[in-house]
């Protein structure tokens, strides 16, 4: 059950373009150009949706951003972006001046004209789009224009139980994904049953949410680079799905593994690594902090998830700031958002986080900001080796993975596309369909959704 929440970030599951996205060339939107100018002052309050003051990293940057727009009344509606809340506001013509959304929502909002391109805003603030992680920019680039300002990045790492590996005569290399046969064998060797009940999960391939990772690991893709054509029925997707499902079949089927996984105390001292009930799995980097906090002595060891070529592979996700087309105060919104992701803000926030961690006697494991410069400086100045090999390895693996991310292109029908492939995976996991058939159905459904969403956009002739 708790795993459900963990999937939150990994959800987007969108796959495709490797980490070299094209920034918005130079297509300037003449309409909005002046809106971001510092001279374009407005008395309208700066209403913000989709952001919460969760922790010190949020608070420190928020204070600085409020400072940056001093004189403007900032109204923050705390909490994640809720579509019902946002859409009701839009329907009533009472649109927030600035929103923070999941990066995978940007394509949908942009394709419907709900948010405006931010190329000029970045220009005004002197921010070169290339300072963001490439794949993150790719995720918010729709029809060659940037529609969102990236913030945060999540990547996946391989996390494994070193005691269990050792007992089975294996190493982390056997379960980091670089050799699928090795992973399959490790699964067989590591998993344990007693009395018809699963007691140790050998390897968890984390379906359905991590399917894009496996597809990408063998050089496949699920959607074309321009975000127009789904390729869910391609041989690579089928191969990846078959393999990832076989991992569960070898351990009594997905239902059993999932139920056992859900029964673990995911955020607690009784987590799967501390209780020796999991050999290895891919997982987002923030889980390192959880483990470090609740079970610092657990026999856990880390590596990047690796493709067949041995190179790290991870798909990026995170949030982005976006400015609604009908924003009452785009100038302040731009100033605020760019301050949230400025190098100085990130450094100040990271310092605060590092201080807090130190005070709590915990290690500061770095921060993935979505900005390459900020990442590098934080790592250089604030991340100190702890001397414990495995935790230092985790930080190493995280930054390594962060340099090798891919993401799906901005997609005008992202939710439907994602639902299509996830439902297909679930049907296979339940034994209701064979992979080829399920993916064929998903392809049809996804392509139909993409076509109708793009049709609207193309008809508007933008």
């Amino acid at each position, binding site marked *: 059950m708790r795993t459900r929440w963990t999937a939150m970030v990994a959800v987007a599951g969108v796959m495709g373009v490797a980490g070299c996205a094209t920034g918005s060339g130079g297509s300037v939107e003449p309409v909005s150009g002046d809106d971001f100018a510092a001279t374009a002052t407005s008395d309208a309050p700066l209403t913000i949706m989709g952001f919460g003051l969760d922790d010190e*990293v949020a608070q420190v940057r928020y204070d600085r951003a409020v400072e940056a727009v001093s004189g403007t009344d900032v109204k923050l*509606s*705390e909490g994640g972006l809720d579509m019902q809340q946002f859409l009701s506001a839009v329907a*009533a013509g009472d649109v927030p001046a600035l929103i923070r959304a999941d990066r995978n929502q940007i394509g949908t909002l942009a394709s419907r004209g709900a948010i405006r391109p931010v190329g000029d805003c970045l220009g005004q603030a002197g921010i070169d789009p290339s300072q963001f992680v490439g794949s993150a920019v790719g995720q918010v680039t729709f029809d060659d224009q940037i529609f969102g300002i990236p913030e945060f990045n999540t990547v996946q790492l391989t996390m494994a139980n070193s005691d269990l590996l050792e007992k089975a005569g294996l190493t982390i290399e056997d379960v980091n994904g670089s050799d699928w046969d090795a992973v399959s064998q490790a699964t067989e060797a590591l998993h344990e049953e007693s009395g018809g009940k699963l007691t140790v999960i050998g390897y968890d391939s984390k379906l359905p949410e991590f399917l894009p990772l496996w597809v990408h690991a063998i050089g496949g893709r699920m959607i074309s680079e321009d975000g127009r054509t789904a390729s869910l029925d391609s041989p690579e997707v089928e191969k990846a799905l078959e393999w990832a499902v076989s991992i569960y079949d070898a351990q009594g089927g997905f239902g059993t593994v999932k139920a056992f996984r859900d029964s673990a*105390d995911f955020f607690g001292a009784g987590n799967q690594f501390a209780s020796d009930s999991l050999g290895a799995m891919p997982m987002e980097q923030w889980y390192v902090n959880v483990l470090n906090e609740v079970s610092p002595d657990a026999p856990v060891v880390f590596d990047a998830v690796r493709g067949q070529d041995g190179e790290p592979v991870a798909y990026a996700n995170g*949030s982005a700031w976006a400015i609604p087309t009908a924003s009452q105060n785009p100038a302040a919104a731009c100033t605020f958002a760019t301050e949230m992701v400025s190098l100085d803000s990130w450094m100040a926030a990271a310092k605060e986080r590092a201080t807090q961690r130190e005070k709590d006697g915990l290690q500061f494991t770095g921060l993935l900001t979505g900005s390459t410069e900020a990442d590098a400086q934080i790592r250089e100045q604030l991340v100190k080796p702890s001397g414990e090999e495995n935790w230092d390895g985790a930080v190493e693996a995280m930054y390594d993975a962060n340099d090798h991310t891919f993401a799906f292109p901005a997609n005008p029908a992202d939710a439907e596309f994602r639902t299509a492939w996830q439902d297909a995976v679930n049907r296979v996991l339940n034994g209701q369909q064979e992979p080829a058939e399920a993916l064929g159905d998903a392809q049809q459904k996804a392509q139909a959704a993409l076509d109708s969403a793009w049709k609207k956009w193309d008809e508007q002739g933008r």
Partner: protein
Amino acid sequence: MTSPAPTSTESVTPTSAAEVSGPRSFRLRRRLSRAVVVVLLLAFSVLFSYPFVWLVSASLKPRSDVFDNRLVPKVATLDNYVSVWQEAPLALWIGNTLLVTVLAAAAVTVTSAMVAWAFAYYRFPGRNLLFGLVLSSMMLPGAVTMIPVFLIWDSLGQVDTLTPLWAGNLFGSAFYIFLLRQFFLGLPRELFEAATIDGAGHWQLFTRIALPLCRPALAVTLLFEFQAAWTDLMRPLIYLRDSSNFTIARGLKALLDQFGFGGEWHWEIVVTASVITTIPMIILFFLGQKHFVAGITTGGTKG
């Protein structure tokens, strides 16, 4: 019907005077069936209180133990309560929630009773059709009426105020109209005939006879709506922006959303806030439930 004070804690009502005396074997059977009742009640009570007990227990655990599946915490601590209190303006939220729930419950009880009375007592053309319309307003899925209703409140300039959270209840609510109508229909007609002969007007029939006799149903209405408004999340979510206007449920969601891309889920905060929101409800319910028992036996006239 009220009965004399019980002798034992789990005393079971003697169903009638006739049952107290009787042959021996019969008394044995009574005892046995009483025991069965008590055992069943206790078993179900365990079942029904388990989730809440679990929540309370989890709220006393440090973060790393929340899901450790022990009902008795390894380490019990009040830290979570302290941090929730510090993290969130709970007192303010509770104040907002109280205001909304009291107004919502009072409004809906008064107006629903009036409307239900009209449907139960009067005969007029189109009555059944109208009542069908009342029921039909329970049938539309909320997902699609949400936005039109939002537009209404927005045009009245009431977004980001507490008004939309309760003012809709001034017009009665189908669920309670239906509920109260069923109870009013059960009242013996002689009462009203007698009162009418005594010269009581329409309003007196309603307030002097119908309402007092249906006190249990009114208590049910009050408490149900109080509970519904207290735990309602959807309306606060779309109508409230400023956190100083938040109700408890909405505030709880804001706490829940504290899972950003740089952090992780804080379940201990969630369970603690849940306990804090539930306790006032429990107290109120416990105090209010005695009204479910009719104060007067139906059949006697009063008024």
